[in-house]
């Protein structure tokens, strides 16, 4: 994304960001009152003041919009009160989803790298396969998720693998496109230089093309992390899976447990941010060996 990392986003954004988040939370509380009021009025005695109404809307068991503190309490409860191996712990569900996303990311990375190397070195692959890889980024690939899960289920393959397959399939495209761009990033002079040294193809790859591609790998890895997580979550929907963040979302929507849905949603967002932070950490470590720049 072109707008991804502008200077605006970096320079002294902490204070404004906190202000915006606080404003959002305030709007959220007001919204909770507005959305939950009809339901709350039924429970309240005649003549109850606004104070009572607000208190009621912020403490319902099945609110239309739970108040932020309710979500925080639910998150804390489901994170810390159960052992993390228990199906009642949100950590357990998060791990079920994240492990599938990670496995898929691993697939995607290996396959994407291999294919990118092929596309950069073999003209036939570049001309025949690359247009399809680019075109598939415009297609809602996620739509195949239910079918893949069902078909693999028919073959007796359930659990992590179908989810990892979908996560990997989604993450594969941006990684391939990014790596092809990266492996092609060296300018003609840098390539000519290698030719004057009579460098072998392997040396051109390991000393020039691969190091040059890292700057492109990390941005596509960020996109891939989010996609893999979305893929793993959506893959949990069609079978009505028992575990995972997607399963929690689905169960919550079946039983009207809005607070549980929001808690699962925030957990998914946290996992996404954790993944992005991990990518940034690796990126920083890689950049440090190069004097701070990739």
């Amino acid at each position, binding site marked *: 994304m072109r707008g991804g990392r502008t200077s605006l986003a970096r320079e002294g954004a902490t204070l404004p960001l906190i202000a915006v988040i606080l404003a959002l939370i305030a709007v959220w509380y007001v919204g909770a009152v507005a959305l939950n009021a009809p339901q709350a009025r039924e429970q309240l005695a005649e003549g109850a003041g606004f104070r009572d109404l607000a208190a009621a809307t912020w403490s319902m068991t099945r609110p239309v919009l739970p108040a932020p503190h309710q979500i925080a309490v639910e998150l804390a409860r489901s994170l810390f009160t159960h052992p993390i191996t228990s199906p009642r712990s949100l950590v357990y569900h998060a791990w079920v989803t994240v492990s599938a996303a990670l496995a898929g990311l691993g697939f995607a990375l290996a396959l994407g790298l291999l294919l990118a190397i092929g596309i950069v070195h073999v003209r036939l692959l570049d001309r025949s396969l690359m247009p399809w890889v680019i075109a598939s980024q415009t297609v809602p690939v996620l739509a195949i998720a239910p079918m893949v899960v069902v078909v693999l289920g028919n073959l007796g393959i359930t659990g992590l693998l179908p989810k990892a397959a979908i996560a990997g399939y989604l993450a594969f495209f941006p990684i391939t496109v990014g790596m092809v761009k990266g492996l092609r990033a060296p300018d003609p*002079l*840098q390539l000519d230089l290698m030719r004057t*040294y*009579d460098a072998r193809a392997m040396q051109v790859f390991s*000393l020039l093309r691969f190091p040059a591609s890292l700057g492109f790998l990390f941005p596509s890895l960020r996109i891939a992390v989010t996609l893999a997580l979305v893929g793993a979550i959506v893959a949990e929907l069609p079978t009505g899976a028992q575990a995972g963040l997607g399963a929690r979302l689905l169960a919550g929507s079946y039983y009207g447990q809005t607070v549980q849905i929001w808690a699962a949603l925030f957990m998914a967002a946290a996992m996404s941010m954790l993944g992005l932070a991990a990518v940034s950490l690796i990126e920083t470590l890689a950049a440090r060996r190069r004097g701070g720049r990739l």
Partner: protein
Amino acid sequence: MTEVALLQPVMRDDLVIPEAVVSARDVSLVFDAGGQRVTALSGVDLTIAAGAFVSLIGPSGCGKTTFLRAIADLERPSSGQLLVNGMTPAEARRRRAYGYVFQAPALYPWRNVARNVMLPLEIMGLPRAERRARAARYLGLVGLGDFARKFPWQLSGGMQQRVSIARALAFEPKLLLMDEPFGALDEITRDGLNLHLHELWRRTGMTVVFVTHSIPEAVFLSTRIVVMSARPGRVVEIIENDLPATRDLDLRETSAFLAVAHRVREALRAGHSYD
């Protein structure tokens, strides 16, 4: 059989004189740019002796860079004979006969200065200790000994180009090919680097082929100046530069210097009047 034997003495003409580092006979090069044929070089004859400093000068499009790239086996002549150290350019390249300095530094931004200089040495498989020693020696030679651990983007343009010269010198080639190495630099930096290059050439006794479009630069640095003209690229005149072997920047104010510069300018103008 006898005929061939009889012809041999006649063919002696074509034999390569041993001290010729580069010899071009009737070299032409035609590009095929999207169906259009562009003649970049036409019938170039040139012999460059060992230890010479030869400048190729001419307007843009005269094929001076193309000729340099042909010597380096980065382009292939369409016809004619081009030999480097008595070998084809491809063979010479495989034996790592020359160092090449491009218009831009072409440093790898993920390697620090010393590791950039070591790059060719790694490719050529020199042992680690030797690589370090050479990087230190040649960075010292271009006056950048203190910057070994900096990264290219932390250096000025002139310093970057000096690193790229050190990189070209590091594997100690007998022939240095330079393609407008100072073209993108400001005049003050350029003067300094010209002086530096001149002293480097005198100390090492290398052969240098130097592409430029600056007349003072060509006159200051060269022992011979090859004037070329465009469409099609060809050699107009070869000017022997008999200025003293040891030169400093003040030389450029002397009448002898201006006389050579004048001859070069006249030759360039003559080349232009063809079209």
